[in-house]
């Protein structure tokens, strides 16, 4: 029977994993599913590789969702992106061009343990679920655990804080697995995109310092195009710019690590809204939020196919 999946509701970790298996089974020529490791609690870290298989060299885009457990709109967007890309391949020539010329690595849930915990126990859990021998508090902020200016301004060294950076960089198996994968594929990965919520912003390096990145003009243009594309859907305005000035200074973040690793375009989206619902964005807003964000991500990906 036709696989019915409702992309306009939030799904549990188990449902998302089943969806991945089903999409992999039903789109063998466009999708490839693999695990890049296991979480602290032993869950597989699945990634979907989206794109036409070719022997030739192809640039790649990495998209991760759900770094922070309570930001449920992230995983909803990653699933929406895969569904839209596959559904529009036949009738949308620009999407077809993107999929033919780029490889998309999509990780629907980065923080699989935290997401599961936010479904079952604490809706507002943010961190991973690793244990700390000396403290009763659990979890590390996976976006303070990357090896770049690790555990300095904007991060906390106290295990009970929400911005705890961890005992050492890449201490979290989820962060270590993604870092290892991106290091391995860094020659091909030209864009790193991390989906967060909420604030309606598009952020790029640096987060840990007030300085301008070397390829500022190209990245700023890509960001401008992205937020313009997003605005074109429903008129929602996003702020954009370097994370340190647009949001706040924070060290150990994934976009700074990706950029330092050599990925020229690194973005973090903070999706809807600006505080009215916050982390509790209603399911009725999944469709418009994902539709507008899809336009922004497509704009960034299209930019990779042009020279800058």
């Amino acid at each position, binding site marked *: 029977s036709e696989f019915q999946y409702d992309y306009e*509701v*939030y799904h549990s970790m188990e449902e998302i994993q089943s969806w991945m298996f089903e999409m992999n089974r039903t789109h063998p020529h466009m999708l490839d599913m693999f695990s890049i490791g296991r979480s602290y609690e032993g869950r597989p870290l699945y990634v979907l590789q989206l794109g036409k298989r070719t022997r030739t060299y192809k640039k790649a885009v990495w998209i991760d969702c759900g770094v922070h457990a309570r930001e449920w709109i992230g995983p909803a967007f990653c699933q929406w992106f895969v569904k839209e890309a596959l559904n529009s391949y036949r009738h949308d020539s620009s999407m077809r061009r993107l999929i033919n010329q780029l490889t998309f690595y999509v990780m629907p849930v980065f923080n699989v343990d935290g997401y599961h915990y936010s479904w079952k*126990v*604490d*809706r*507002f859990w*943010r961190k991973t679920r690793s244990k700390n021998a000396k403290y009763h508090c659990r979890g590390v*902020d996976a976006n303070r655990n990357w090896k770049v200016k690790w555990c300095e301004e*904007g991060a*906390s060294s106290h295990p009970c*804080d*929400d*911005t705890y950076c961890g005992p050492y960089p890449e201490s979290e198996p989820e962060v270590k697995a993604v870092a290892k994968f991106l290091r391995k594929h860094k020659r091909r990965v030209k864009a790193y995109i991390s989906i967060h919520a*909420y*604030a309606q912003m598009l952020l790029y390096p640096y987060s840990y310092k007030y300085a301008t990145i070397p390829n500022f003009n190209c990245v700023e243009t890509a960001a401008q195009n992205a937020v313009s594309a997003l605005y074109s859907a429903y008129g929602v305005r996003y702020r954009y710019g370097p994370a340190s000035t647009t*949001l*706040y*200074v*924070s060290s150990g973040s994934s976009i700074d690590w990706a950029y330092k690793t050599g990925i020229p375009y690194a973005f973090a989206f903070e999706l809807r809204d600006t*505080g*009215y*619902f*916050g*982390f*509790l*964005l*209603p*399911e009725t807003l999944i469709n418009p939020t994902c539709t507008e964000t899809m336009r922004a991500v497509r704009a960034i990906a299209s930019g990779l196919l042009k020279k800058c």
Partner: protein
Amino acid sequence: YLYNNRYAGDQVLRITPRNEEEVQVLRRLFQNMSVDLWQPNSASLIHEGRAVDVHTGQNGTAGLKARLRQEHIQHSVLISNLQEEIEKQTGYRSSRKRR
């Protein structure tokens, strides 16, 4: 009830510190209170003129509001009953399940 109704009566307040003095008051306040900061996600990241969204438990809300009034710090209620919003967020699903 989802999550065993643990968020009944919890609220989310929006506080906008207008000057450095209010920033310091808030930082001190949140160092000593167990609150769930939604935005920014750490007291050290509170800045002048930037909205602070904070989730407070049923028992702590009145006290925090009283303290904010005492310090004449502007604040408003973003979400007056968190449990209701949680039920609404995935209410569609549970009604579907019931159906």
